[in-house]
């Protein structure tokens, strides 16, 4: 699968759920490339902005879309890595702010 195919597939699946890609296509493509790289490395699309262990069970909560996306988008209008944003974030009616890591650090060292 290439970046364009992944873009179309995810857009179609996620927009109806209220999760949008930011307008900056090069930003989105960079993250999609990271996802495809991780698929190649680990066999699953783990968040490109997090360090995967390579053990699918341990990484389950950070496989995209991660377990923290809903809370992050509800609170900040964006997920941690900024692949998915809310309509308000996209339309600029809420401030674009840094999304702190919500994943407990213990999970990384479990």
């Amino acid at each position, binding site marked *: 699968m290439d970046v364009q195919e992944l873009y179309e597939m995810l857009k179609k699946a996620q927009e109806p759920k209220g999760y949008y890609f930011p307008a900056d296509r090069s*930003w989105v493509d*960079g*993250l999609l*490339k*990271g996802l495809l*790289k*991780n698929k190649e490395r680990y066999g699953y699309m783990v968040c*490109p*902005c*997090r*360090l*995967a262990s390579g053990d699918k069970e341990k990484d389950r909560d950070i496989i995209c879309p991660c377990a923290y996306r809903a809370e992050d988008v509800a609170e900040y209008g964006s997920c941690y*890595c*900024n692949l998915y944003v809310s309509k308000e974030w996209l339309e600029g009616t809420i401030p674009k702010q*840094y999304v*702190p*890591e919500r994943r407990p*650090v213990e999970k*990384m*060292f479990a």
Partner: protein
Amino acid sequence: MTPPVKLYTLSTCSHCKSTKKLLADCTIQYDFVDVDLLQGEERSAILEDVKKFNPKCSFPTIIIGDKVIVGYKEKEIKEALGL
């Protein structure tokens, strides 16, 4: 004189790439480690270092002189660099 700049990054992370680009655009020299490209003991040792600066162990972790900045926070990075 610019203080020493050290980054702990992931090769796939866009926030990490933006940080490297900002520093390059400002012609700031920096050292970095892409932690996802390390394995085994080498990775564990670096993660222990990251933890000391940033207990959440998230990326990018940016060290400018004695300041630690977590995440691509352009304003804070520039301030720490005195730009």
